[in-house]
């Protein structure tokens, strides 16, 4: 094993044979992206024109079961923003913006405006996720709604590419990209420079500006300054444009970004609450036994739905952060910390990232494996026309792993609880003594324990 940077416990995958040529070449990434785009467009078409029966509709099953399983159970925990590197949503707009499908090839279209300074944060992503989440009971079950939402994503992404420079949609608008960025801090892989001094001496900054071999960072990040995965789209453009072979694709310990005391922000902190709260709410609405709650979430536009929407927003933006704030204040009293409460609140909120991801994995395990068998008939007859392409058009619904599921979910959630508690202690320890850090983090651990208990109750009963 070769250690490639001053950071410890890292292994640069580009040192392996074939890895760098495969990643530098545009063709593998291009082909996977085009296949994903084909599936995405097909999902829109089947959503709008296929069978309106959600459990048999390719769009619903492909996106909300197959893709969701791939994303939450594999891609995000293990590859961070790996999905973003092949995501089909921004590529049509990006191709138009660049005027090319592969390498830089002349002049593209678009106004190339800079994204407004005041919006250079993820508050819009927080809002867009909450907006989609409010309609999720309908979007996840009604093929036409799924088709419209996916088409809207595509339309907005193309529009953003034609108005603004680079991947403004991915960086500032995409509701999925927001939480992938948050949880990518956990992933055991990162794109980083090997030697920052080389970047400092490289005046052309082709990784940010672009050159004949590739484009300047689409995510508007300077690779030399990357400390976290949050805003690195793993697109590999910097690997192609760096003339000094200074880009590494590192394997690293899980959760390494969480314990770096830099770059912590309130918008990202709130993303942690939004995601944790949404996991709780989704578990209650979609897997719970409360018919009235389910009906309210489904009856978009009704008085019941407005009540549900207000309760949902109040929970993720008010109740959960408010309870966490109480835990922070209690921790400050216990530890005698004199740090500003807001600053402590922001820093400590990053401790919720492991529990949040664990909550989504636990929810997704149940959701996905309960419904995965819908995939086979949907693939066999994607348009609901009586086809039987894979011989599974009449396969019956069969939930998988029903016996093992409660145990799996409990292990994941308890793992998330322990990890979050340990992370809280480490974050507190950045500014406090070991004893004070323990006291500062105890109420946060209690907060995590209550949330975990709630999730265990909702998911396992």
């Amino acid at each position, binding site marked *: 094993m070769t250690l490639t940077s001053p950071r410890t416990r890292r292994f640069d995958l580009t040192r392996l044979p074939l890895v760098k040529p495969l990643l530098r070449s545009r063709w593998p990434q*291009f082909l996977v992206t085009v296949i994903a785009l084909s599936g995405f467009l097909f999902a829109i*078409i089947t959503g709008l024109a296929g*069978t*309106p029966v959600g459990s048999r509709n390719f769009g619903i099953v492909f996106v909300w079961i197959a893709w969701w399983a791939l994303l939450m159970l594999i891609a995000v925990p293990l590859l961070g923003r790996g999905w973003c590197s092949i995501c089909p949503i921004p590529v049509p707009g990006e191709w138009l913006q660049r005027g090319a499908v592969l390498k830089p090839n002349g002049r593209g279209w678009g106004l190339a405006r800079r994204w407004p300074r005041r919006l250079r944060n993820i508050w819009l992503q927080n809002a867009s996720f909450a907006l989609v989440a409010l309609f999720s009971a309908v979007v996840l079950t009604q093929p036409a709604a799924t088709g419209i939402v996916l088409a809207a994503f595509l339309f907005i992404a193309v529009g953003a590419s034609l108005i603004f420079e680079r991947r403004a949609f991915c960086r500032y608008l995409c509701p999925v990209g927001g939480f992938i960025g948050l949880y990518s801090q956990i992933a055991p892989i990162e794109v980083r420079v090997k030697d920052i001094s080389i970047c400092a001496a490289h005046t052309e900054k082709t990784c940010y500006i672009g050159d004949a071999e590739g484009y300047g960072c689409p995510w508007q990040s300077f690779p030399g300054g990357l400390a976290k995965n949050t805003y690195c789209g793993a697109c590999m453009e910097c690997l192609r444009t760096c003339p000094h072979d200074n880009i590494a694709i590192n394997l690293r310990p899980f959760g390494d970004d969480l314990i770096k005391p830099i770059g912590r922000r309130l918008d990202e902190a709130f993303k942690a609450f939004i995601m944790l709260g949404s996991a709780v709410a989704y578990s209650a609405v979609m897997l719970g036994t409360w018919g009235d709650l389910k009906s309210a979430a489904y009856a978009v536009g009704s008085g019941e739905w407005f009540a549900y929407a207000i309760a949902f927003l109040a929970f993720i933006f008010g109740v959960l952060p408010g309870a966490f704030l109480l835990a922070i204040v209690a921790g400050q009293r216990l530890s005698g910390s004199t740090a500003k409460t807001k600053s402590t609140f922001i820093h400590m909120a990053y401790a919720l990232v492991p529990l949040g991801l664990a909550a989504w994995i636990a929810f997704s395990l149940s959701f996905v494996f309960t419904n995965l068998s819908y995939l086979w*008939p949907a693939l066999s007859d994607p348009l609901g026309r009586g086809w039987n392409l894979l011989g599974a058009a009449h396969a019956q619904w069969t939930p998988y792993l029903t016996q093992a599921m409660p145990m799996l979910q409990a292990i994941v959630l308890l793992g998330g609880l322990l990890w979050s508690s340990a992370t809280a202690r480490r974050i507190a320890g950045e500014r406090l003594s070991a004893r004070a850090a323990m006291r500062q983090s105890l109420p946060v651990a209690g907060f995590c324990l209550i949330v975990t208990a709630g999730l265990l109750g909702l998911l396992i009963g």
Partner: protein
Amino acid sequence: MNAERLARFIVIALAIGLPFIAVIGSPDAQAIEIHGSVSETGGWAPADLTATAGRPIRLRLTSDDVMHGFAVGQSDAPAVDVKPGEVTELTLTFDQPGKYVFYCTRWCGLNHWRMRGTIQVEGQATAASDEPPLYVKLGLDIDAAHPAGVLPALRPSAARGAKLGVTIPAEFSSLDDYRPRSPVETWGAFRGASFTRGLSDQDVWDLVAVDWRSHTTPEAMQVGARLYAENCAACHGESGAGDGVMAAAIENQSHLDHAAKPVADFSDPVSMLGAKPAALQGKIVRGGMGTNMPYWGPIFTEAQTWALVDYLFAFQFEMEDEP
């Protein structure tokens, strides 16, 4: 071809061509695709089909919401299930021209019975047209109330009546007498006749039950029981008491401009013992105008309708000895 052109070709071929080919490719352009959904969201679509007598038509049935069933009225063809998102293929051939009704055979919702469509079959008729139903020929007002003025002390029993050893004279027991006459009218006719002299009023009611049993068969009762369970019990209830799972909801429907009549209670002797079999058949065939009673004329054969009428009286009469 340079790399950029090749990439663009792949984009067009895969991202646009594949979905396009998948969408335009239809497995059977000759078949009629019929989508089923609960009546509240449209029922069958299309609901009006045409065919030619003697020529098969191919149907591709699919449900857009819940499980439905498909059958053609007054036909021997068995019903088929129409599952959500799946396609059921069916070929129909009509021997005779006419207007046929197809309908849902699964209790799919409150207005399940409204989920019907028609198939207009053109061609040369080779069989005689149907006669009007008996209630029309008799000129019965089937909407009029028909309370029985006299009631039995016990539930009339054909088994007890048979044990009396009394033979009902032929002039009192023909089918032509039975169907236009309510049980209470039959009881009155029997009571005034000499063959019931010396019998109690209850004995005469038991003979009325014997008369009912003599005009049906175990096979007809089985058919009636099946039809009742499949088509009537949801509103009228398993016991006939008008307390089926849909009864309350159907009475509260707001599409009528007046208060809906309660669902008929076949366990009520006042109403049932005053009901003429021909009037009950008329209700089934025509439906209850102004009530929520569906019309079954285009769906049940005449034999099925009479079998159902026979079964309805089983809510009043005992056929066999009670165990």
